[in-house]
């Protein structure tokens, strides 16, 4: 029965994707992308990937919509030109689709426990996690220690992307400083003087922050971890910025603090790795962090998840502020 639910949801996903590509109004496309993300997350949940669904929930529902809208505000909302060489592109895409579809016939049946994927390291992780790490959430264990190098790499990709956006957008805009000063009269029309959303959002922000911290530190026991928590905490600050304005948010968490958070997170991750070398083992081997190797692994995971959370929060918020600051110039 749940398989049928999944199939229904997947059909909705395809319809939504077609709608996104079809519409000329970019604004509508962004909103449909929000629905698309909700559907994908529900699918992940049905496919037993609670952690992934939580990540998609934290990122897709708020942050990606906000970023796309920020970009639309700076560019344009309509796709003006008709699609050139439409039939040629369609022919290429259809033939590529047929090739991929042909390849799917070689795929193992959905949910087959004997599929090649499940013959590799996956079962080993499931079997050895209680012995080596002893935390209930295997996903966090794999993310934090078994594949710590991967995660370190991903954190640095996120870090680099954040730096890239700051480089691109923090330079001088096209508007002159005098125009920048003429802004306050306009901004009075925003959501800021809408009392009800403002009160409710203020009420909600501490709860989102609290929930983010719960997700951060409960990641060893339930779905969660640094990536999800970082996105949730960033979302809380974005909500605050939406109702209270950029300035108030930057007062609460200035750009410098964000930068420090980002860098400190990445350094914390790398530092925990180096601590492994200093204490006489290998890079990112946490078992030497405490006298008991299992305890050491747990401490290591908590620390690197904290680093991940700090970096993700810092990067996502810096990106948001970079777009929002452009908008005001």
């Amino acid at each position: 029965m749940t398989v049928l639910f999944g199939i229904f949801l997947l059909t909705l996903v395809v319809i939504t994707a077609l709608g996104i590509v079809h519409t000329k109004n970019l604004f509508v496309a962004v909103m449909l992308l929000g629905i698309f993300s909700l559907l994908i997350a529900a699918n992940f949940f049905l496919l037993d990937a609670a952690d992934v669904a939580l990540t998609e929930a934290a990122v897709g529902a708020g942050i990606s919509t906000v970023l796309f809208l920020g970009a639309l505000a700076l560019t344009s909302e309509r796709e003006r030109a008709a699609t050139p060489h439409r039939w040629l592109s369609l022919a290429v895409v259809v033939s590529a689709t047929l090739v991929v579809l042909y390849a799917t016939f070689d795929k193992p049946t959905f949910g087959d426990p004997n599929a090649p994927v499940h013959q590799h390291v996956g079962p080993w992780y499931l079997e050895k996690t209680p012995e080596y790490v002893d935390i209930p959430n295997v996903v966090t264990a794999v993310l934090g220690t078994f594949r710590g190098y991967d995660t370190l790499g991903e954190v640095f990709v996120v870090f680099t992307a954040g730096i890239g956006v700051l480089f691109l957008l923090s330079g001088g805009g096209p508007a002159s400083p005098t125009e920048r000063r003429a802004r306050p009269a306009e901004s009075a029309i925003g959501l800021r003087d809408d009392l009800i959303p403002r009160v409710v959002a203020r009420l909600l922000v501490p709860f989102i922050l609290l929930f983010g911290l719960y997700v951060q530190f409960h990641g060893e026991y339930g779905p969660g971890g640094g990536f999800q928590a970082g996105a949730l905490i960033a979302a809380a600050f974005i909500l605050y910025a939406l109702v209270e304005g950029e300035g108030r948010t930057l007062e609460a968490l200035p750009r410098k603090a964000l930068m420090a958070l980002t860098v400190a997170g990445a350094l914390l991750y790398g530092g925990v790795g180096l601590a492994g070398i200093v204490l006489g083992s290998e890079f990112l081997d946490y078992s030497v962090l405490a006298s008991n190797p299992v305890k050491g692994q747990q401490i290591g995971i908590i620390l690197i998840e904290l680093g991940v959370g700090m970096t993700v929060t810092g990067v996502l918020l810096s990106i948001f502020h970079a777009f929002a600051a452009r908008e005001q110039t």
Partner: protein
Amino acid sequence: MQLLGIYHYWVFAVLLMIGFYAVVAKVNLVKKLIGLSIFQAAVFLLYITMSKVSGGTAPIFSESAAGQLFSNPLPQVLILTAIVVGISTTALGLGIVVRIKERYGTIEEHEIQEIDRR
């Protein structure tokens, strides 16, 4: 039942190609990035589909899941990080689009090419 067994992969293929179409055929740069997001989501879906085991549950031990099959944690780890990386790289792309708009005054690909040719 045989068809239901690979329906997930078909959806993956179709989504992948919808995203691909948007990237290849559309001339609007933001639309291309939206297409890229769809493309990404299709890949995520493929990985998560592969991690699923029938009758299994999410790979988090608890009393309510004692003695059950668990789905494969590895693809989930890869995709979990990929989602956050995906949003950061999309943001980078959007940053580039914003700069292009400021420099060229348009985000339609052919108009940019025309301006460059001049």
